[in-house]
């Protein structure tokens, strides 16, 4: 068996496994953990379009999650509009807001962009926390919104966790596909080039700021969709949970630890960090609150010092090594292929 076939077989097994998982694992608790894992992987993949490729550091993406969640929920509660349509509306609104914020800020360099997005994210949180009613729409300030129960596909509400599992899985696959596709066409090349050496890219005909804004709009659109998903999954959300610094930072951390600007990085980052945070929250939160954040911080620093391209790089090497070893290729290609 050649290395390539083994690689293909393993990938097919993985895909089949992930898609059939709910059949042989029915525990809603574990399913919920997986759903959240995919949710974070999806968010981070969306973030990565700007934060990874365009070479800037957005630290306010929670704002777009919030925009998505509030938009679809308000449309559902006031006009009975299906959250499926509300989801698109939220995504479009998030993209519009992202564009408005992006046009002036994406011209700024590193530190300024990070601070501006962060301030914007915090501004949105403060605004929502202080607003009980926005015009005719109820926001309930810090108390958040509870979505009335009425299970149906059209209402994006399900008793079982399984539909949620498949929805977020498909969203994640779509996001990964979009990222992969974009990386192979002009916009991907231009974003990467502009992120790394803006002057050189401009001299080669790239309007760097314009492409960054496009990336921001796509990223914010996808992030907005995630907001609706979260709202429909939890059926209750409040500003502290989906808006604010911690959430924004967590998305960025996962991307950076996983591997910024890579396809697998966000997924691997979520795969490794989410369980850390879930389990330490479950087992240590009573006597060591905040332990998982200490672990996050430590992992982050160590990764930045020793693997600035993220853990996807050593994992990739390891995977290749396993493949070589399993197919007996080791003498021909060497360990470090």
């Amino acid at each position, binding site marked *: 068996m050649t290395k390539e076939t083994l690689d293909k077989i393993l990938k097919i097994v993985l895909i089949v496994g992930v898609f059939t998982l709910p059949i042989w694992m029915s525990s809603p608790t574990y399913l919920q953990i997986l759903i959240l894992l995919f949710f974070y992987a999806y968010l981070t993949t969306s973030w990565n379009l700007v934060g990874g490729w365009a*070479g*800037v*550091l957005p630290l306010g993406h929670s704002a777009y999650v919030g925009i998505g969640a509030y938009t679809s929920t308000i449309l559902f509660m006031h006009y009975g509009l299906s959250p499926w349509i509300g989801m698109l509306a939220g995504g479009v609104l998030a993209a519009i807001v992202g564009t408005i914020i992006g046009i*002036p*800020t994406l*011209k*700024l*360099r*590193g*530190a*300024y962009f*990070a*601070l*501006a997005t*962060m*301030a*914007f994210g*915090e*501004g949105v949180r*403060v*605004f929502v*926390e*202080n607003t009980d009613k926005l015009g005719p729409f109820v926001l309930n300030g810090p108390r958040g919104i509870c979505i009335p129960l009425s299970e149906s596909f059209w209402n994006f509400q399900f008793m079982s966790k399984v539909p949620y599992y498949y929805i977020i899985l498909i969203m994640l696959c779509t996001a990964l596909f979009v990222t992969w596709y974009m990386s192979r066409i002009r916009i991907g090349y231009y974003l990467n080039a502009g992120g790394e050496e803006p002057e050189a890219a401009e001299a080669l005909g790239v309007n760097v700021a314009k492409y960054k804004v496009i990336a921001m709009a796509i990223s914010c659109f996808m992030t907005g969709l995630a907001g609706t998903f979260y709202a429909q999954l939890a059926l209750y959300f409040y500003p502290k949970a989906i808006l604010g*610094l911690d959430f924004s*930072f967590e998305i*960025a*951390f996962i991307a*950076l630890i996983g591997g910024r600007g890579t396809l697998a990085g966000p997924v691997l980052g979520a795969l490794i960090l989410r369980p850390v945070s879930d389990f330490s929250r479950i087992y240590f939160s009573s006597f*060591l*609150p*905040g*332990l998982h*954040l*200490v672990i*996050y*911080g*430590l992992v*982050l*620093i160590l990764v*930045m*010092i020793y693997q*600035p391209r993220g853990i996807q790089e050593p994992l990739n090497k390891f995977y290749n090594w396993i493949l070589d070893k399993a197919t007996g290729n080791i003498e021909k290609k060497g360990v470090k292929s």
Partner: protein
Amino acid sequence: MDFIIQAIVSGTLMGSIYGLAALGLTLIFGVIKVINFAHGSCLMVGMYAAYWVVMLTGVNPYLALIVVVPLLFFFGYFLQDIVIKPVLEAQSDVREPTEVIIVTSGVWYILDNITLMIFGAEYRVVQTSITGKAFEIGEIIVSTPKLYGLIATVIVSVALVWFLKYTKMGKAIRAASLDREAASLMGINQYRVYNIAFGIGTAIMGVVGCVLIPFYYVFPTVGVIFDVKCFIIVVLGGLGSIPGALLGGVIIGLIESIGAQFMTSTWTELIVYLVFLAVLFVKPAGLFGEKRDW
């Protein structure tokens, strides 16, 4: 009219303390070109240090400076040396290494949450001899500990400017901030300069910590409040600018205190964010910043 004057006085006093806190951040940015996201956490460390010195020895909080400031200096010095330097070295050919922002936010998470694990989430207050003291000038009430804050700000700023202008180390710091390659060619050990600049930046947070504890709660995430304020202040004043940091601090202090006369404090917070975004959009270099290709 009195309540407006009162608000201006209180706002200026509190704003000068914000300005002092932002001074450390702007100094570090000016030299290393990195936003220290752990800046608020350093303040938190400074406040806990001051809190425990006062609690354990019962000394006047301003006497605690003798212990707290050197402590914070070495804390910052080694933080830069051990944690940040390796990343800076690895990214030495990158003009503005965003990786360092990430590392400092990692430090932020670690410091805040270790403090949470050790001391718990409760708000701590320390009764000092000047807690709650105030005096009146006409109708205007002036809080004594905040007035000391203003005095500390003036002393520290003057000392810092003098240090940067007239000492050998200060000149080296300024040289390194202008051009890190050229400075290292001139025989300046840039990383030692960074360590010292970082040490001074956090030592200033020690001063702020001592100034704050007579009238401010101490709790693990207290830094975040100041973190975000400091970011806004330094961008408002111009990243890297010392007068900008002080003026920006006073502006934020005034917005808060005058705004509080007309609305709840959470709305003034929102106004601060709006002002910040407006400045970024209109004059991204800030009030005192040089025009650069940001």
